[in-house]
């Protein structure tokens, strides 16, 4: 069985361990630093960046407000184009549907395009239990899979690994799953990419069944959109006879034209490119081209729970660009694993509790896995107001129905305080985000939270050490 986050320690303990790991910290710092620089340069190329963000946020809000209608429209279009649509209430149901679809083909090995949702639901393990081996084809996802590791970033799941570690995994593991790594493989990134090409080529040329996720699902036309860099996505989406796309309900966008907003934002914000090398769009089945059987599995798994949260539902706008983790000073120090979920960083800190409910020690600690510096608010292409949602969720954990209360809160706050003890790093991160002053929640929070936000001082860029500041102000609440 491959590893999962099930049973992972809660954020405080995992973060404490992660911050002791100097190699991890240096890998994460280097990678996020590189990507922040690339992104910043490309964002300034667009004088209309803020306008694109306004449109993207509004389009996602529109889709979420009428999600039933948009999903039915997508279903109708996919069906009309020869595809089959399935609905799954939770992870178990989604896994059952996909497993049965693969079983019906008789195939024992399938190829996969990186999909955070299939990681979220533990699809690989479910398939393995049914005797089906699902091979990851995205380079970073393959590194994670070969190394029996866990993803730590939504765009680059192996972000926590450096080139030397990747080389060792390839040399050790590739031969056990197909073509071995070339003799004398060094840790040059180009050589590592070549090793992956050769190893996976064999699998692409044989593949009969592929599983993908989707970046977007266009309701108006039923079109699935997959954005990628390497061409492994094209291989899976094109060469297999049967294609199964597993898609979260929130991936819908209203119309075809709306892609002009999202495709102009996504790669710039995710990898610092104007467009990713490859974007594939397809609608159902095309006779004579690509898979002749297409299944779309729409997955809830907590999304409707998040949707019911009036403050938190904005987390469902997320297009998984990863920018909030690249900018996050807490993420930079703990890496992604500490969050105990395939969605780490600021989005993980709000999305996981919203999907699962705050009633377990792990997700309950996540709203505290933040220093409330607000850097994430500034980079999010769909304008998620992380701080609003974090405050609301903290309130729920501290004072709501959640069974897990103050011990979680205190441990989590201590953990964040400990990882943020260097004011220089804090200042650099805040400056990198282009922030010049303290951040106030834009709107007052509704209902019982109002009193709290009225009196709450939001963190200044600290002159004292973060830890002292945190203690003095009780995490910014005094």
């Amino acid at each position, binding site marked *: 069985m491959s590893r999962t986050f099930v049973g992972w320690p809660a954020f405080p303990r995992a973060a404490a361990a992660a911050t002791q790991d100097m190699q991890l910290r240096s890998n994460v710092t280097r990678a996020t630093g*590189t*990507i922040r620089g690339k992104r910043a340069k490309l964002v300034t190329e*667009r004088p*209309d960046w803020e*306008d694109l963000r306004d*449109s993207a946020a*509004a*389009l996602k809000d529109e889709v979420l*407000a*009428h*999600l*039933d209608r948009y*999903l039915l429209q997508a279903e109708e279009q996919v069906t009309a184009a020869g595809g*089959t649509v399935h609905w*799954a*209430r939770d992870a178990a*149901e989604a896994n059952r549907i996909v497993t049965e679809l693969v079983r019906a083909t008789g195939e024992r090995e399938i190829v996969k395009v990186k999909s955070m949702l299939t990681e979220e639901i533990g699809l690989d393990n479910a398939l393995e239990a049914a005797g089906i081996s699902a091979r990851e*084809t995205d*380079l*970073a996802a393959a590194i994670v899979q070969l190394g029996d590791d866990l993803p730590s970033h939504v765009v*680059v799941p192996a972000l926590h690994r450096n*080139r030397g570690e990747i080389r060792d995994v390839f040399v050790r593991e590739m031969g056990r799953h197909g073509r071995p790594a070339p003799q004398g493989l060094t840790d040059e*990134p180009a050589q590592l*990419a070549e090793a*992956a*090409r050769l190893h996976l080529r064999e699998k692409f*040329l044989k593949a009969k069944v592929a599983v993908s996720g989707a970046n977007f699902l266009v309701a108006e*036309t039923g079109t699935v959109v997959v954005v990628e*860099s*390497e*061409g*492994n996505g*094209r291989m899976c*989406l094109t060469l297999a006879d049967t294609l199964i796309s597993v898609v979260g*309900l929130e991936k819908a966008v209203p119309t*075809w*034209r709306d*892609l*002009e*907003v999202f495709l*102009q934002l996504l790669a710039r914000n995710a*990898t610092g490119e*104007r*467009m990713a*090398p*490859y*974007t*594939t*769009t397809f*609608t159902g089945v*095309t006779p*004579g*081209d*690509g898979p002749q059987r297409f299944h779309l599995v*729409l997955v809830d798994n907590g999304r*409707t729970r998040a*949707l*019911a949260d*009036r403050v938190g*539902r904005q987390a469902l706008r997320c297009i998984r660009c990863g920018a909030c983790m690249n900018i996050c000073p807490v993420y930079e120090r703990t890496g992604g694993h500490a969050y105990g979920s395939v969605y780490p960083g600021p989005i993980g800190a709000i999305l996981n509790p919203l999907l699962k409910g705050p009633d377990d020690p792990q997700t309950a600690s996540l709203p505290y896995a933040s220093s409330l510096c607000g850097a994430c608010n500034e980079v999010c292409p769909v304008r998620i107001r992380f701080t609003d949602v974090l405050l609301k969720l903290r309130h729920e954990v501290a004072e709501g129905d959640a069974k897990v209360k103050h011990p979680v809160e205190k441990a989590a706050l201590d953990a964040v305080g400990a990882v943020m003890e260097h004011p220089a790093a804090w200042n650099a991160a805040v400056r990198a985000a282009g922030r010049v002053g303290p951040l106030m929640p834009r709107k007052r929070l509704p209902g019982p939270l109002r009193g709290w936000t009225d009196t709450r001082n939001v963190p200044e860029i600290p002159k004292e050490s973060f830890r002292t500041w945190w203690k003095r102000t009780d995490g910014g609440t005094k």
Partner: protein
Amino acid sequence: MSTGAREEILGRIRSATADLPTQSPEVPRTYLRHAPDVDPADRETVLALFAERLEEYGATVYRAGPAGLVSTLAEVLPAGRVMVPTGFPIAWLTQWAGEALTEETTPLSRRQLDGLDAVLTTCAVAIAESGTVVLDTGPGQGRRAATLLPDLHVCVVRAGQVFSSMPEVIGSLDPLRPLTWISGPSATADIEMIRVPGVHGPRRLTVVLLLEEDQSRDAVG
């Protein structure tokens, strides 16, 4: 398939969104309709931007007028076995010495496609700002597998097909056709976020920009 799941999810959505107004606010669309600082009518600037962006991402760009196209293609194509999809103007290949394969009668197997030296196509449209060519499997473009497995993709783009940015082209594309938006050759940044060209897709992308008569005279040199 369980209709129970479908109805239950739709029901959950409806109750989750019950507090929201039925009429949503209008979506603002104040972003640019063309590339920043570019007048879309200024063709030379649009084409120069297209070439610059392609090259920035590791593609090789050639410019040719109608008179020079035949020799340019002979120069950029390997003298080996090349997939030339049905509908590609064969008259452009009279000086090239290699062997053209089509799928007119039977599709090639994956291994056959994998063994070719190149694929040669036209495109549907192109976007200057992001250095993107869009294939829609129309005439001269072939099915998707044929443009994916060969290691070199040579794409002829007519100058009139190049627009400054995405909002100018999206409405002209048919979402019912499978579309491949290609912005430079295959690449990865999965190792320490350093961009490495060439993974699974074609590792080399050559774009031949076919200029109108007068532009090609201007563009000499």
